[in-house]
């Protein structure tokens, strides 16, 4: 097929996918981060970089939170960084339940930094979702009126630094935990298709993001078995190129209604916005 015919034959198809990238008054990324990554100099993306890519707001964690013990300082730096973004970056502080006095960090996140979201890294902090400590923390966060993001994995195990390997979080306990803690609002970030179809099967109240959902037509495929109101647009930038998740919205055939659900409504519901 020559170039002209290719363009003509795909023109009808190509016109439709582009609605995914049209300028939008609101497009929320639930999986953004700031701060240094210990093993690589990541691109310096900020609120403006996201706006240039059509993303209006991003729930933003700190990469420092993975390995830094003074997590109170990490959360304070994150809050300061996000405050400079003119409302684009919404800070998600991190709690480390094996550190002494983690409840004070929760208090500061809520009272001093006005954070709405807590982002957890069980596989970098050395606990499991089956530990009673996790259930305690979930209750404390919920009682404080905040919502929770659990990062299932940051990086493919096959490419991790040999001295700092972190297996993905075992998500199986979530099913029963969510039943036992019905008020908790929980989102899992960076779950892959295998986790979604096995460990997370039947977790009807759980939100997910699409950053690590792979496979051709990955979002379309996920939505065959996962509720459309529980999947959110998330980039895992700057660790990933943010264009990856943006293009996933183009690759899958999604109606305008679905696109709005993925990029706006579902994240708003998670955040408890009307």
């Amino acid at each position, binding site marked *: *097929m*020559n*170039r*002209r015919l*290719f*363009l*003509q*034959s*795909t*023109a*009808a*198809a*190509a*016109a*439709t*996918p*582009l609605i995914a*990238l*049209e300028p939008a008054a609101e497009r929320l990324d639930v999986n953004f981060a700031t701060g240094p990554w210990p093993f*690589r*100099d*990541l*691109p310096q993306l900020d609120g403006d970089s996201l706006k240039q890519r059509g993303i209006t707001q991003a729930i933003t964690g700190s990469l420092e939170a993975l390995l830094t013990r003074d997590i109170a300082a990490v959360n304070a730096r994150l809050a300061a960084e996000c405050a400079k973004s003119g409302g684009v970056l919404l800070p998600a502080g991190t709690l480390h339940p094996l550190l002494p006095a983690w409840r004070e960090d929760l208090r500061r996140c809520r009272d001093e930094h006005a954070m709405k979201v807590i982002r957890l890294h069980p596989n970098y902090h050395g606990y499991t979702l089956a530990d009673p400590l996790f259930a305690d923390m979930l209750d404390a966060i919920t009682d404080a009126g905040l919502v929770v993001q659990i990062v299932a994995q940051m*990086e*493919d*195990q*096959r*490419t*991790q*630094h*040999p001295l700092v*390997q972190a297996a993905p979080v075992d998500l199986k306990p979530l099913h029963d935990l969510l039943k036992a803690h019905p008020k908790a609002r929980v989102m899992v970030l960076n779950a892959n298709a295998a986790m979604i179809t096995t460990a997370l099967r039947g977790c009807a109240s759980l939100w997910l993001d699409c950053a*690590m*959902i*792979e*496979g*051709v*037509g*990955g979002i379309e495929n996920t939505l065959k078995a996962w509720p459309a109101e529980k999947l959110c647009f998330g980039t895992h*930038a*700057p*660790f*990933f*190129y*943010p*264009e*990856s*998740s*943006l*293009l*996933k919205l*183009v*690759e899958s*055939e999604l109606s305008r209604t679905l696109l709005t659900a993925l990029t706006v409504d579902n994240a708003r519901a998670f955040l408890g916005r009307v």
Partner: protein
Amino acid sequence: MRESDLLPRMHWLMNPKFRIWDLHCHLSGVPGLTPEERLGQLLRYADRVGIERLCVYMGMKWSQDPAPDDFRKQNDEVLRAIAKHPDRAFGFVTLNPKHVAESLAELERCVANGPMVGVKLWVAKRCDGPEIDPLIARAVELKAVIFQHTWFKTTANYPGESTPDDLVALAKRFPNVPIICGHTGGTWELGIRAIRDQKNLFADLAGSDPTAGITEMAVRELGTERVIYGSDCGGRSFASQLAKVHGAAITEAQKQQIFQGTLRSLMNPILKAKGIQA
């Protein structure tokens, strides 16, 4: 609709001025009862993200160490698929260096006497050993593009799975033959370094997470003319892999070179020999 009508409506991520060929596509991980249906599905999504041509290899069901009957069947499936879409897909023949005579026969059947234009070597046997040499030598005579899967896995490679170091050993024995380093070793910061000084090795960007920096480092260390876009679909999305190029901090001309230019220059000899217009 004319091409000029399309241009202003295209988003920056979907700029139709890019011509995109995908080096690395499979008939697995995509629905469809037949190879033709599966390639049709891949093309449906390829159309949505602006990919013009797919290089397809390996069948509907894989085996790490396929016996001759098995790789012949997989190649039959690719032949069926590309016969249905000859204007959109190129076929690469899957070989197994543990079965040299049968692999040479497959080269004759699928490339010398068939429509395929490349060779795919996977994980049956590491590529540093001499068994593979007759396959490479014959592929060179046929001007076939040569692709070897590689990984540097922190979690340990399969027994027969090559690393980029293994591929360098092979490439030293064929210093004038271009060979593609599949996945750039997956752990790309190691893979790029491993192949840097072996100038006849080319980097396939496919099949790893879209970690920011891969393309910039490959361009910096290898030069754009040694870097090739590929997806590893259906197991991977086109989106995550295209993002490695669309999202990289490089020039538009460099993106075009990676999206099509480098692969095209490797394929030109065999396309010309076979009279394939593309």
